[in-house]
């Protein structure tokens, strides 16, 4: 397999791979916003800029003026022309400098600063806080405070995009992942980008709203808090949630998913896709994402047969129920479609009461039939039963 070098480390690649994809496969993260493994390359966020030198080829250099501290003046200097790692295709023998290049570090810092120039102070009320790339990359790459003290550009907030999605244009970095997702994966180009520069924002196509079976995925492709689902909005703070691997119980596709649950209450506020290129790639449908609701909704919490408490049952049924733990008696704790959380006793199946009742009836019926046909299978009889039979 051909290899490239990233920061001196050899990385194998397949023909046609971009640098970022080859690195991603090896678990090396090159900071990025707009690149998504399942979408086309836009190369518009400029976060993944790296220093590239190709074998035999001359490294592209730029003439720049750089501040010289000793001379107290700007002096002409050469600087490598950086390339987006999401777009540059891997070539055998290519050498890439990512974390090891001061030019790359400066570029990331500047890009990050630019992206935050008009960003509102929203972290305390933003659902993305805690899993936001803007936060992560600020700490990793920028670490400086604000220099632009002008009033930031204001844009529409809390725009209703449809029944499922709310858009905040101020938080948006216009990476166009959502636009590309709707066009390329959902096959419905309902989202568009309008205006340019710091006025650009995502809008709906004229006369349309965001609808279909794959609307909620735009929240999950959004690297910042611009797109939020109306389902999860303001429901939980993500740092209180724990995640558990699960399979979406919605249909037979069996999309791999993350189940985010609140360990304090046992509630499951969201389900989100887990990458599996063989099954669901990176995506999930709206029905699947919303299936977390079924964990809480329409739950059997009391015995189904109204008016029949254990005290009013027949003697036989009382005997049958005696000595069983309460949970078993209610038929709970049997089926666990959402496996991982069940081990903690937090999730219960949907309609187990009825299920158990029906199965119990079948079992009893089968037992009665079997006894009548094959006396040998009865085993030792209780004393009173034998006496009864003898007298009869």
């Amino acid at each position, binding site marked *: 397999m051909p290899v490239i070098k990233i920061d001196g480390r050899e990385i194998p690649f397949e023909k046609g791979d971009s640098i970022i994809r080859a690195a991603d496969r090896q678990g090396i993260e090159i900071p990025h916003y707009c690149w998504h493994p399942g979408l086309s390359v836009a190369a518009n966020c400029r976060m993944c800029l790296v220093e590239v030198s190709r074998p035999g080829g001359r490294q592209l250099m730029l003439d720049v003026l750089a501040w010289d501290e000793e001379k107290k003046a700007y002096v002409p200097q050469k600087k490598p022309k950086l390339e987006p790692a999401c777009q540059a295709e891997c070539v055998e023998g290519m050498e890439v400098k990512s974390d090891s290049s001061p030019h790359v570090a400066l570029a990331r810092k500047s890009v990050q600063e630019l992206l935050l120039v008009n960003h509102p*102070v929203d*972290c305390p009320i933003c659902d993305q806080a805690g899993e936001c790339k803007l*936060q992560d990359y*600020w*700490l990793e790459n920028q*670490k400086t*405070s*604000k220099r632009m003290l002008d009033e930031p550009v204001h844009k529409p907030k809390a725009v209703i995009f449809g029944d499922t999605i709310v858009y905040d244009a101020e938080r948006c970095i216009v990476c166009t992942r959502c636009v590309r997702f709707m066009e390329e994966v959902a096959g419905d180009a309902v989202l568009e980008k309008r205006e340019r520069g710091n006025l650009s924002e995502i809008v709906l196509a004229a006369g349309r709203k965001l609808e279909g079976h794959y609307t909620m995925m735009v929240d999950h492709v959004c690297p910042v808090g611009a797109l939020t689902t109306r389902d999860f909005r303001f429901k939980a703070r993500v740092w209180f949630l724990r995640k558990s691997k699960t399979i979406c119980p919605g249909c037979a596709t069996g999309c791999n998913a993350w189940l985010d649950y609140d360990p304090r209450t046992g509630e499951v506020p969201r389900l989100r896709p887990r990458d599996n290129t063989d099954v669901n790639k990176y995506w999930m449908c709206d029905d699947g994402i919303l299936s977390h609701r079924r964990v809480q909704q329409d739950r059997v919490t009391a015995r189904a047969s109204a008016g029949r408490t254990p005290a009013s049952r027949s003697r036989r049924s009382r005997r049958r129920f005696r000595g069983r733990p309460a949970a078993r008696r209610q038929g709970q704790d049997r089926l666990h479609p959402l496996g991982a959380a069940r081990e903690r006793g937090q999730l219960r199946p949907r309609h187990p009461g009825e299920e158990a009742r029906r199965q119990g009836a079948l079992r009893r019926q089968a037992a009665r039939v079997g006894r009548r046909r094959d006396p040998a299978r009865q085993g030792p009889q209780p004393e009173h039963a034998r006496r009864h039979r003898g007298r009869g």
Partner: protein
Amino acid sequence: MEPTDYDIDESELDLPTEPMRLAMGPSHPAMHGTIRMMVECDGEMLTKVDVEMGFLHRGFEKMCERGTWAQCFPYTDRLNYVSPMLCNVGFAHAVEKLADIEITERCKWYRVVLGELARITDHLTCNAAMAMELGAFTPFLWMVRAREHIWDLLEEETGARLTHSFARIGGMAKPPTPLLKARLGEVIPAVRSIIDESMKLLLKNRIFLDRMQGVGVMSAAEAVQWGWTGPTLRSTGVAYDVRKAHPYLVYDQLDFDVPVGERGDNYDRYLVRNEEMYQSLRMLEQCVQKMPDDGPINVADRPEIVLPEKKDVYTTIEGTIQHFKLVMEGAKIPAGEVYGFTEGGNGELGFYIVSDGTGTPYRVRIRPPCVFVLQSFPRMIRGHMIADVVPTFGSVNMIGGECDR
């Protein structure tokens, strides 16, 4: 107990006796409610003393492992709770050593000022309580009055009289108040005159002298072997003081002496603490002269560790992100381990900390100075009388929070 109808042989008055076992504490007033001593006595003479510590164990070190680094400061307040500021500074010092942070000049001075104030309250409390446990209630009230002056000042500076939680990794919670130096100018002479008076109350008191002198003697060689540090070690004649031996903050720029005792008895420990208070006051006077009046308190070049200013948090997204990351995930202290040590109220207060590079300490181990003194207590008290336990234990200055952790 011996049977009462014991057949006494007139010629043999030497009754066969068994040593009596007594439990002193934990509710004995001189045991501070935090310790029990099983003493075995032959008459009033102690033959064996077994010190049982741990009544105030709260799992401090373990608790540190579940919060962020910054969240350890309130715990350190509750180590040596008569000089919490010294523990605050000690922990900050260790973490800064691991993270390779050079704190600002003004912050160094500020930490010395608050730390030395805390040291005076520590020694005042120890000496006052020791005298009180010998029945001298007036000197206690007298010295506590001096402590009030200092606590008022500390309250003005930090917002709390006792549990300040004031130090931060890379700085302090707040810069000094504008009135700090003026208030120091008032407090230093007031405290000095009170200490003078308290010494007049005690040093000519025959009861006090008789019960202090020659009691609880420890030799210098043995004290070193037991791992003693601080005023108790210095009372035996060993001039080891972390501030002189391994200067940190700005102690190398301050002119102060390390007082030592001669015999290592209770009386020497009392005198050493008294003299250290005078030395601390001397240092504070120099701090008033030398401490810069302006300049940053927190380091500016470590945004991944030091919290941003509140006005930035509320008005800029960069400040908000910085605050969010530091509060929710904690400052990421580089992986490694370090032993940071400072001169606490009772001696060398050490923090052995291990970081795995996350925002939460992997391990925080404390070297509490008074444990080492307390463990040798049976050695100090052997052969003395039951009543001598009280002043000797008082002179050890065992602080439950620090000892049991």
